[in-house]
């Protein structure tokens, strides 16, 4: 089972999204801000991180930057969620996926299935 670290300061988003992801068969770890997420990353390396952008203390961009500095975390795909519109030059951004809130949960699960399916294919080839 794939493990996902879900990071958002809105408790209801964490609560509902975690439940929906669990229903889909994922193991979900939750954190309420970037700093807490970094603490959890030091103990367990998930298969993907889904994080909000605007959070107190450490925001989503900073969380991503700090993950890039750590060799253990650099390859973890990060999905960024934000209430702000998608940046116009989003193709150049480092996120694996950008989701503007509110988004359809199906968009997220479709991406996760595609991503994990592709990474499993790669793993089988190697």
């Amino acid at each position, binding site marked *: 089972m794939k493990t996902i670290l879900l990071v958002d300061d809105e408790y*209801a*988003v964490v*609560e*509902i*999204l975690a*439940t*929906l992801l669990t229903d889909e068969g994922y193991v979900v770890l939750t954190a309420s801000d970037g700093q807490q997420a970094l603490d959890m990353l030091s103990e367990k390396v998930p298969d993907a991180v889904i994080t909000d952008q605007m959070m107190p203390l450490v925001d989503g961009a900073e969380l991503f930057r700090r993950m890039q500095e750590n060799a253990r975390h650099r390859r973890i795909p990060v999905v960024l969620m934000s209430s702000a519109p998608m940046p116009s030059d989003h193709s150049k951004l480092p996120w694996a996926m950008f989701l503007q809130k*509110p*988004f359809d*949960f199906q968009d997220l699960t479709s991406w996760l299935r595609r991503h994990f399916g592709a990474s499993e294919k790669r793993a089988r080839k190697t």
Partner: protein
Amino acid sequence: MILSGGFLRGGSYIIAGAPGAGKTILGNQICFDHVASGERAVYITLLAESHGRMMAQLSPLSFFDPSVVGTKLYYVSGYNQLREGKQSLKALLALVRKLIKRHGATLLVLDGIVRIGSFASSPIDFKEFIHELNVLLNFTGCTALLLSDSTGEDVGHPARTMVDGLVELRDVMDGVLAVRELVVLKFRGSAYLRGAHFFEIDGNGLRIYPRVEARLAVPSSVPAAKGVRLSLGVAGLDQVMGGGVQEGTATLVLGSSGTGKTILGLHFLAAGLDRGEPVLHFGFFESPPRLLQKGDDLGLKLSQQVAKGGLEIIWQPAGELIMDALAERLLDGVRRRKVKRIVIDGLAGFEESVVRPERLSHFFKALTNELRGLGVTCILTEEMRELFGPQIVVPLTGVSGVAENIVLLRQIEIASELKRVIAVMKTRETSHDAMLRELRITDRGLEVGDPFPTNGPVLGVGTTRAASRLQVPGERGKG
């Protein structure tokens, strides 16, 4: 129309109203309509009536389709979840989540949201439930209707501040008349028609009539003025009015009972039929057979025109009518056949249907503007209550202002004989002959005679003598 397109996907909306206001019918009607378009819906009841009882009550309604119940539309009780002590709201939310996912529902009805509140351990607990429900709806794209017994007095209910919209159904007494009203109190993310809109519940469920003056605040089109004059079909009257009435205008015909208003309207329609125009008679008092007989007796051959499809008669016998519903029928009749001339015979029919008299002038203004927008030339007849007397009073407030032209028909006594007289009181932006003339009803209909041979005030007093000129302030008359 009221919500500018409907509820938004993924939004939450409270439908509030006292018991019997129509919430359950509306909730079900929306569900059946939703699944008829290929979507799926879940209806969760909470200590309300049993599903069997609800089905029995819904089954006579035209929207009810038993084939979709249990396949596309699921009825579930959530009451067991509410009995799970402190975790009751969490359990209910989990049930909602599972049902949405299992059935692929894009519409959810929670019937009895106030009962959920009474199971919450604190107001915060309830707010958390609503908040989490909103997030769930956002992620799943499911729209929720939360049916609530709470009404206007309970505006502080926590759920009201957190949902995307609030619609209230009211059943109010207006004198001895019970009136159903729908009011949108809040609707995030889109414009909506504010204020009260009347609705009725019949075998088709709820039928809502958006307030005409709100719906038609701006007419659907504004055609260019062509300056074309149309005949009223009465010998002599066209000349008095400067060559007829301008196309796309409204002419108010005022007169006491028996002065020839209806016959004037029939002449007007017959003149349109002679030009090949589709015409409409919209009346409240004379039945279609009587009206056609009257026209046929005058040689206007209206019965033939009904058979040919040139003339349609929409008759609205008196009853507890909603004036917005009347306007909808009228406009539907105009649009359906691209009608060019209409007679609205008896504006009092609207007055008798009205529940809010203060609306009348705005209502008629919006309605006549829409008719102008549709390129319709109309005659509005209105009965004056006074047979004789020193004053000419337009019975309906604000109506005279919406008509470009006003024609007055009256009976006067001259030398112990009653005579009909006609006078053009107003023609907007054109000149007219303001002389008072005799009006005769013959076996060929109305005939306008020469200027009336009197020297004293006739209309104002009702009995002989003095000036025969009429002038409405601000209007031009060549006399």
